[in-house]
């Protein structure tokens, strides 16, 4: 739980920078002395404290709740196995309200008040981008589970990492060969007219082109739209595949109206599970999706060939074979993304142990140790699958799943290779000063 340090908890101050008022500093210093003694002992035995920037409220709340559950399960597993470097791990949680301004304050709070070792867990791109400057200024490693391309774009700073989930550019690139080979060569994209949609707008056409397929129309839906039928006549008649990435509460209306527009004669449909995370695939109105395909980061439904690690991960997090909370079939998980929390915490463990991490004074060493990581083998620590890590762009690359909606469930029909999602680095964080 969150640290409840009081406003005037002077044991948390760093008075050395207050050279201008040395009198005050000296007086407070007397009160501080026991605190310093306690701190020096803490480095060897006290828990490693991980600041978890959670979307408990705001538009990311459904994700935030499952990110917390997954992270708590991972911390328990790590602690049960001896912790990190023999020290227990403790999550300190603060709600960022899925708001970038509050997100930056939360990062400051972790760094300066809670004095956590790292910050972790953010999903929504605008919160990551809004919080990244605070992480850089505080020189506190910031491990996000966002899937946005912003980390890999090298536009943030050296303290921001995304080692547990692939970025959207890589995901889109990985989908292209399967779409071109199995769904069709003429693709129409329907996407929300904001940044999430733009990633798909910009990265899919070149990826399909390389596979001998084409995007023949791109239909951007304004974010304020609540009815979609008027956009459907813009879909060219020769379309083989509709590639849709609508998100938010309007997605049910979108699917329902698309179904009414096409009836039983429709092109192939290919979507991203971001549209339906935490939403029951059997919700009324989604029948039209039967037989369509989706990208999934990690499968929502248990698969016949699930590895022992995948089964153990699902049991630890508490999701049943349908991807819902054990004991509450209506509480659908965000399975495609939340595995990233589990895997990121194991990357943190590995990097901290490699760095011989003792405390905040070793944060720079932790950054370098993380950058030195190359690959993560599939197993209990990485149940979604094997990954490679590019230390220059602070981004991992992994396999993706393509699932078909069959009988009200999602069945994995194809797994991509890591190589499918690799691209040329756009910069190099390691050239930035620590």
């Amino acid at each position: 739980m969150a640290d409840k340090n009081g406003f005037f908890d002077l044991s948390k101050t760093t008075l050395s920078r207050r050279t201008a008022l040395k009198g005050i500093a000296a007086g407070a210093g007397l009160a501080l002395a026991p605190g310093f003694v306690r701190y020096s002992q803490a480095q060897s035995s006290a828990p490693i404290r991980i600041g978890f920037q959670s979307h408990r409220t705001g538009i990311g709340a459904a994700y935030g709740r499952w990110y917390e559950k997954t992270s708590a399960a991972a911390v328990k597993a790590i602690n049960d196995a001896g912790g990190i470097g023999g020290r227990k791990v403790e999550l300190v949680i603060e709600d960022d309200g899925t708001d970038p301004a509050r997100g930056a304050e939360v990062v400051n709070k972790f760094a300066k008040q809670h004095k956590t070792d790292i910050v972790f867990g953010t999903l929504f791109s605008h919160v990551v981008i809004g919080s990244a400057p605070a992480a850089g200024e505080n020189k506190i490693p910031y491990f996000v589970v966002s899937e946005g391309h912003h980390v890999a774009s090298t536009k943030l700073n050296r303290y921001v990492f995304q080692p547990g989930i692939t970025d959207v550019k890589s995901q889109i690139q990985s989908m292209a060969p399967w779409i071109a080979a199995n769904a069709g060569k003429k693709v129409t994209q329907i996407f929300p007219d904001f940044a999430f949609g733009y990633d798909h707008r910009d990265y899919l056409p070149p990826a399909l082109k390389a596979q001998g397929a084409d995007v023949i129309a791109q239909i951007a839906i304004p974010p304020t739209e609540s009815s979609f039928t008027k956009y459907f006549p813009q879909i060219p008649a020769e379309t083989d595949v509709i590639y849709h990435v609508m998100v938010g509460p309007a997605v049910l209306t979108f699917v329902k109206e698309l179904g009414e527009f096409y009836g039983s004669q429709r092109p192939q449909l290919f979507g991203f599970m971001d549209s339906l995370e935490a939403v029951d695939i059997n919700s009324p109105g989604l029948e039209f999706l039967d037989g369509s395909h989706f990208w999934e980061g990690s499968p929502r439904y248990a698969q016949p060939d699930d590895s022992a690690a995948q089964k153990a991960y699902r049991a630890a997090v508490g999701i049943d074979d349908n991807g819902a909370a054990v004991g509450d079939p209506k509480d659908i998980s965000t399975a495609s993304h939340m595995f990233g929390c589990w895997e990121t915490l194991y990357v943190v463990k590995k990097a901290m142990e490699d760095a011989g991490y003792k405390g905040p004074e070793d944060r720079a060493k932790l950054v370098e140790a993380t950058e030195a990581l190359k690959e993560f083998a599939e197993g209990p620590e990485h149940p979604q699958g094997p990954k490679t890590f590019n230390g220059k762009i602070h981004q991992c690359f992994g396999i993706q799943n393509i699932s078909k909606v069959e009988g009200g469930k999602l069945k994995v029909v194809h797994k991509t290779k890591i190589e499918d999602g690799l691209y040329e680095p756009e910069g190099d964080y390691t050239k930035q000063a620590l």
Partner: protein
Amino acid sequence: MRDASPAKTYALHIGVIALLFALNFVLPDYHQGLFARIMALAVFAMGYNLLFGYVGLLSLGHAMFFSAGLYGAGLTVHHLGWGVPQAFVAGVVCGALLALVIGLLALRTSGVAFMIVTMMFAQVFYLLILYFAAWTGGDQGLVIQQASRVISIGGISLDLTDPTVRYMSALALFAVVLLIALALVRSRFGRVLVAIRENEERTKMLGYDTVANKLIAVVASGAICAASGAAYALLFGYVGSNFASIQYSILPLLWVLLGGAATTLGPLIGTLFMYYVTDITSGFTSAYLLIVGVALILLVLFAPKGIMGSIRERWLGWLP
């Protein structure tokens, strides 16, 4: 309002500025950073208060003026490589020009219509930010890199990412705007604004050009809010469309209502109060907005004129 000697009034305000200066040296690190943010946003509230508190015009679109400053400063740094002072001026000019145009159009209305018109213009501004995502970063926003947030004057470098420099920069802006606001509301112009609020028809009959005075107030309010936005971009390094959303039009209204409309220090007190209620209660419950809401209701019930407004009404009638 009972009149007070200027010395007493200015002493109080300079005392507040001195207190904030001293706090830099004693506040714990986290609270030092939070106070810098609060002071920058209190400037936003002061700009809003000028129009709402003194002229009586309730706008639901002030997020566009804050964002005009935010983007005016942020985009010139990000795309044109401008220095911090030039970018700050660009932000303020953007806000003032936008306020001039919006004022010319929106002041044809009053009351509820003014609220709706300003809200609509703000929504247009918000959607324009999303539409021109190639330049603005859309809903994800842009980061102003640390290296771009350094002021170099005559061989001296001031790094705005340094906590003390940031705090002092926010304080400098806050102090300047507070003293300008104080001088403004004590001036003849300020008294005309209050007269417009109390009875616009009578003010017209007395020979004042109320439309021109209101337009000047809109431009001054927009420019102050833009100064806050520009400072926010440069001090905290992030420019995002959420700052142009309706939420950021309602927040300054809440800060001003809480602190006390038509009081010079109310915007600071309201912003401070809201920030700390949110910050402290969010550590205990995810329903912290409910607690904020209850606090607001209690305030409306027991101190409808806000914190400083109630203090003025009950004890210190000379407070400006």
